[in-house]
């Protein structure tokens, strides 16, 4: 069961940081069903603590035997029934991929509206992500480091240029319209935390200080979101409520000297982020499938998953991004199932098994 430590903790969290960021920077008052987007700073502060709590089951399960991921634990504790757990995780990761593809599609059709059909671009993205997944976690981790560097540089660049345009009068008081906006923002942030279930597979692959990594990753995400919200609200005021992707719009109004239209910068970085997220979750779904289907059949399934992604990408209604299976309650439920409930159940089973073994040992003595 022993696993080779193939990536470092910072590399793992840079992948997860990008995966979170590409989703978090697409939210808007329209998508999170809130009127006062400034309240989402409070949502980010609350989500920061909630995410810590949600990671705990996976962290404790990993601490019980740090050579085993959640799938290894399920096979050890449940035997062949562990296939169900592997299937469940594979489906969840595939579902996250489909959600990301849908997000990419709505972004393409609403913001860029390129002359090339969105279907062609989506297919190309999925093919590229398949290649990324094929290269494995090491390659992805290295790429993530480079992309994260460019991401941070561009964020700083856009941030500085927007800082100049802040009007303090644009900041309304927190929660003056009640808690609806706060709740909407919190629900949005928590329900899209697909990185938590990903940790259940990735933890045994990483070497380094995990506690520190989790803390910096979580703090970095929510601090960045809070800064982005402050800059957006301060510079755009009520105008951002009319925008489907306000972070992108903020990029379009940012300028330093003669450098204008920085939305192109955001666009490039965001697309790279989408590539990392798709590749990572595609790879994870493939890993889960290989657990129960074996190496050969697993590869076939990965191919099928690729087609499923393309199929959904092409035929999914572009307005379905925040309704139906992509509604926040459904996303939250599925995330809690694989990110919290399953690891918690495995911890309980493992404890019971350990106790049973110790009782049997004592009886033998």
């Amino acid at each position, binding site marked *: 069961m022993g696993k080779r430590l193939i990536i470092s903790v910072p590399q793992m969290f840079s992948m997860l940081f990008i995966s979170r960021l590409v989703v978090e920077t697409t939210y808007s008052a329209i998508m999170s069903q809130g009127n006062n987007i400034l309240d989402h700073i409070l949502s980010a502060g609350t989500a920061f603590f909630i995410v810590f709590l949600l990671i705990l089951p996976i962290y404790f399960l990993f601490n019980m035997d740090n050579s085993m991921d959640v799938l290894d634990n399920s096979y050890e504790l449940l035997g062949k029934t562990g296939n169900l757990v592997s299937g469940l995780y594979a489906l969840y990761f595939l579902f996250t991929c489909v959600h990301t593809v849908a997000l990419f599609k709505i972004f393409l059709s609403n913001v860029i509206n390129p002359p090339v059909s969105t279907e062609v671009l989506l297919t190309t993205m999925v093919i590229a992500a398949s290649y990324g997944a094929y290269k494995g976690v090491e390659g992805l981790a290295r790429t993530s480091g480079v992309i994260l560097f460019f991401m941070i540089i561009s964020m700083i660049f856009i941030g500085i240029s927007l800082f100049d345009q802040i009007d303090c009068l644009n900041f309304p008081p927190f929660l003056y319209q009640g808690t609806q906006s706060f709740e909407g923002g919190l629900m949005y942030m928590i329900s899209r935390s697909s990185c938590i279930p990903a940790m259940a597979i990735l933890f045994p692959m990483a070497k380094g200080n995990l506690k520190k990594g989790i803390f910096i990753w979580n703090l970095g995400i929510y601090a960045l979101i809070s800064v982005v919200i402050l800059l957006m609200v301060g510079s755009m005021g009520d105008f951002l409520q009319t925008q489907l992707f306000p972070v992108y719009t903020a990029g*379009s*109004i940012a300028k330093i000297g003669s450098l204008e239209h920085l939305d192109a910068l955001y666009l490039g970085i965001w697309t790279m982020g989408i590539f990392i997220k798709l590749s990572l979750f595609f790879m994870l779904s493939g890993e889960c499938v290989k657990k129960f289907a074996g190496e050969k059949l697993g590869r076939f399934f990965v191919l099928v998953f690729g087609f499923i992604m393309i199929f959904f990408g092409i035929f999914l209604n572009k307005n379905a991004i925040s309704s139906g299976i992509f509604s926040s309650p459904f996303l939250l439920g599925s995330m809690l199932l694989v990110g919290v409930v399953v690891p918690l159940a495995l911890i309980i089973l493992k404890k019971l098994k350990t106790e049973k073994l110790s009782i049997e040992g004592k009886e033998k003595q």
Partner: protein
Amino acid sequence: MKTKKIAVFFLSVSIFFMSGCSRTVQLHERMVIQGIGVDLAENGYKVTIQALDFKNSQGGTEPSVKLIELKGKSLLEALENSKKQSGLIPMYSQNLVLIVGKSLATSGMDNFLDFFIRHYEARPTVKVCVSETDAAQVLSLKREEKNIQAKEISDLIPESLHSDVMHFVGSLHGKTSDPYCAYLSIQNNGKENITPGKNQSEDEGDNSSEQDTKNGTESQEENNEELLSMTGIAFFSGDKMLGVETQNGFLGALAVKGIQGLGVYNIHSENLGDISLDIVKTKSKISVNTNEKRFYIDIELGTNALEVTPNQGANIGKAEQEQIEKQLDDEIKLICEQTIRKLINLNSDIFRFQKVILNSDPKYFQNHNENLKEILKEFDYIVNVKSSLSITGTEI
């Protein structure tokens, strides 16, 4: 090996779908829109487009500028008609300015502004202005026998005025303030021009060479040509234009909003003489006390005295400097108070007083949200102006 085969399969298939290169629209097939003018027409809108036409370039290095007049029930319909008329694909991302005819602005702008929010190529930084005449007339104005370019019109509107789609739509959508935008007028070269910060009496005595503002809010023209200039701001209540603030009202509005570049203000002192002040820095802070029903508007001005015509024997020392500052403070204070009162009585809150109430007393805001604009009329507006004058050189 199998993976490689799969990869090769995918790549081979993708070649058949990769039609991106063949379907790319070349620059000469584009109509690069630089300015859009919208006027009211029977059963809809009359839209005038100024665009760069790379296809029909008349020699030279620069593309020709093309004016197209279109009509439609909606703005989008009118704009889409440009394809039929020119055979070119319109490109809105390079649009610099949106000019709205006064008649359309007074009847309401909400119906067609949506295009500038939703269209993927529309940029929120596009400047918005209302023209005294039809927008079509502004865009077809001639300069040295050539059409005035949209870039020149856009340059008339200083960025610090925040007269753009983002601020206009934000004010309209937020429901806690009313929008405003730049107001353009066409005047004959010999005719009197209006500069913010000039008293009516002083305007009458000015000659045309003194009428240039510091911001360059005028296009300098040759003899008997028509001039386009930014003469003030158009203020709205909701999406409907109510009126225009020019001259002192314009100056007062800019000072209350803390917008830089107020331009030149002339004061006359009985014992000192005439002094032309260039107001280079403006800072404004608005606070409210809802219990006392009072707004406090603190304005700081940084001014330079660049043209002093003192009375015989007058000398500008420290005491005189303080006297000038005091006079300037008093005059600007009066102008600001009159401007605020006028706009509030007309039901226009371009100074965001409702937003100030929301931020400092949310409960009061929520309790009076329905008729807050009416309540604003009952408030007192206390303006405090503090200027700091710097005088360079000595009197002749």
